[in-house]
């Protein structure tokens, strides 16, 4: 008995040695996979890896916005992006539907009013249920969740810091960076940081934003200005140059034209010079008309900056570890298999350079990466022909090339553009203006005329576009389109019936059945 105790006692101080030996012999690292960032990409990657029986951990940490907004697990999409955006867009659409309802026979007292204090908490409650749902899913799939801020120490080591400052060190065989992005603030404009908010804040406001100036012309800016107008608020958009940069410009103008007639005010080719707070608490914004050089001012309750997003790389310590970044964009350079310049470190989602800033691509890339790392798969993510939809008051769905890009690649003579202005049936009785409801199909001019790009503006654009994404992925041609029968009566059938080309110069307005 005494001998046993002596033996045990001798082994105690060797505990440290024991751990190192144990690591070398069996696990080697704390985790097979450590994911930094619990958003669309990070969660999908970690859950997929766990399916293979691997030891996986996710570090998710939200640095509060300058205004102080914070949120739970799930990333941008769930908390301050896609989800609240679509719900508030829906709230705005319903306002429009109620107005149409009169013409369809419904006796509804008018005018109708909208209450931010009913909508916002309902949206926020739904987001919180998603935070919980993700938390349960991670636990269920045996993924370790740590509410810690991670940074790299070397190719296999991560420093993790809690909100109270407590530090710990984690090691992993593989590391995935999926920290996404955050809204940029135009800090060179006096008052921008102190008095303005961003998309990180708009969905979590405890009170209505009131009269709002949205600065920017990205889809974030237009979608926000769109639903704010739709719920009855005075909303203005200040655009420095062009709307929806990167998107088909003909369509971008149709989208903003519709918003203009819908009630959103536009300040084209203007740039804010300063934001000041008045005694009343309202904000005085001064701006310059870039064409005339004239200065102008107006007061607002809220100023929303939507001037771009910056990748969340600052706190990751990437340079020290040798992870190469694109100097211009600040994003992490990745190869076709999402690998960074450091072995065993990968990057997916908004943080990765050259990738679309979309939830479904981050999710798919994350899953495929996990399958390649742990599941003997070699399938790479296909970033070609990714469909998207902009949820402005007039929705815009697209997949494939813009007309400009198609011209750049194939020349004007190499393409055929079919187009049509149509009127959704629902708009007729409602006496709604359909001037900007438009469809454009950009095809190769030769042979069966393969479809290169699809563009649709109108109600339910996302639902309409999804199926066409499959068609284009399968290499659908105009010939096949002509052979497809339309569903009647729908707006989508007008796509199937496209026959007027831009080249012909004929009037593309659809007339009757």
């Amino acid at each position, binding site marked *: 008995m005494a001998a046993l105790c002596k033996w045990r006692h001798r082994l105690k101080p060797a505990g440290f040695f024991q751990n190192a030996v144990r690591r070398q012999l069996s696990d080697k690292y704390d985790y097979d996979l450590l994911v930094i960032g619990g958003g669309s990409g990070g969660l999908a990657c970690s859950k997929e890896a766990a399916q293979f029986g691997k030891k996986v951990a996710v570090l998710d940490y939200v640095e509060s916005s300058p205004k102080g907004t914070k949120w739970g697990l799930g990333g941008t999409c769930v908390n301050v992006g896609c989800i609240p955006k679509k719900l508030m867009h829906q709230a705005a659409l319903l306002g429009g539907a109620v107005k149409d309802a009169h013409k369809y026979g419904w006796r509804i007292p008018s005018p109708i009013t909208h209450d931010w204090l009913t909508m916002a908490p309902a949206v926020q409650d739904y987001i919180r249920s998603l935070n919980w749902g993700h938390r*349960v899913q991670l636990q269920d799939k045996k993924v370790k969740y740590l509410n810690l801020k991670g940074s790299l120490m070397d190719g296999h080591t991560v420093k993790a810091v809690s909100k109270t400052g407590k530090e710990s060190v984690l090691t992993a065989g593989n590391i995935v960076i999926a920290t996404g992005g955050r809204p940029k603030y135009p800090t060179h404009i006096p008052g921008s940081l102190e008095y303005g908010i961003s998309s990180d804040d708009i969905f979590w406001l405890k009170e209505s934003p009131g009269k709002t100036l949205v600065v920017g012309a990205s889809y974030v800016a237009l979608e926000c200005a769109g639903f704010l107008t739709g719920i009855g608020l005075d909303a203005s958009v200040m655009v420095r140059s062009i709307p929806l940069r990167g998107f088909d410009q003909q369509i971008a103008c149709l989208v903003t034209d519709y918003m203009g007639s819908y009630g959103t005010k536009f300040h084209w080719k203007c740039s804010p010079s300063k934001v000041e707070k008045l005694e009343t608490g309202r904000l005085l914004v001064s701006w310059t008309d870039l064409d005339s050089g004239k200065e102008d001012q107006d007061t607002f309750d809220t100023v929303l900056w939507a001037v771009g997003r910056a990748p969340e790389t600052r706190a990751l310590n990437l340079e020290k570890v040798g992870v190469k970044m694109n100097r211009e964009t600040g994003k992490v350079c990745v190869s076709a298999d999402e690998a960074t310049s450091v072995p065993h470190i990968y990057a997916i989602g908004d943080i990765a350079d050259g990738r679309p800033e979309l939830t479904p691509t981050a999710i798919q890339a994350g899953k495929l990466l996990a399958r390649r790392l742990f599941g003997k798969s070699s399938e790479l993510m296909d970033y070609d022909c990714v469909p998207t939809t902009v949820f402005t008051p007039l929705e815009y769905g697209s997949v494939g090339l813009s007309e400009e890009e198609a011209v750049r690649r194939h020349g004007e003579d190499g393409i055929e553009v079919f187009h049509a202005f149509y009127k959704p049936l629902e708009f007729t009785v409602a006496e709604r203006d359909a001037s900007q409801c438009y469809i454009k199909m950009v095809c190769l001019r030769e042979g069966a005329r393969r479809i290169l790009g699809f563009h649709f503006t109108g109600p339910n654009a996302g639902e309409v576009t999804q199926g066409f994404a499959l068609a284009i992925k399968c290499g659908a041609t105009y010939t096949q389109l002509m052979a497809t029968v339309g569903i009647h009566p729908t707006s989508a059938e007008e796509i199937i019936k496209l026959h007027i080309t831009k080249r012909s110069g004929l009037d593309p307005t659809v007339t009757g059945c």
Partner: protein
Amino acid sequence: MARQYEEVTVRGYDEFMKAVSQRKGKDVFAYFSGSKNEQGVSWCPDCVKAEPIVRGELGYLPPGSVFIYCQVGERPYWKDPNNEFKKTLKLSGVPTLLRYGTPQKLVEEECFKKDLVRMMFTED
């Protein structure tokens, strides 16, 4: 060791809402079970299975919190889709373990997993 939480036992919707309203501002956890008969056995087999698992984790409840054990009623009452628990509290099944006033809840088989129960009791 002294219990850090308050345990309350109630029967039916009205008693439940009364217990909650008397504890405003507190962190209230509620476990809903099909009612037990004179032998102390519930008509809901999942509730019978989950109860010891949930009770086994009560030690992890945050200090100052409240644990309400609520018997919802007899099987025919529960099966009626218009009963107050379903209509007002939006319960979809028994057993349900939830944190009142938050979207945190565990339903049916989720209550069998002690790590999920512990997670609800210990995380924010």
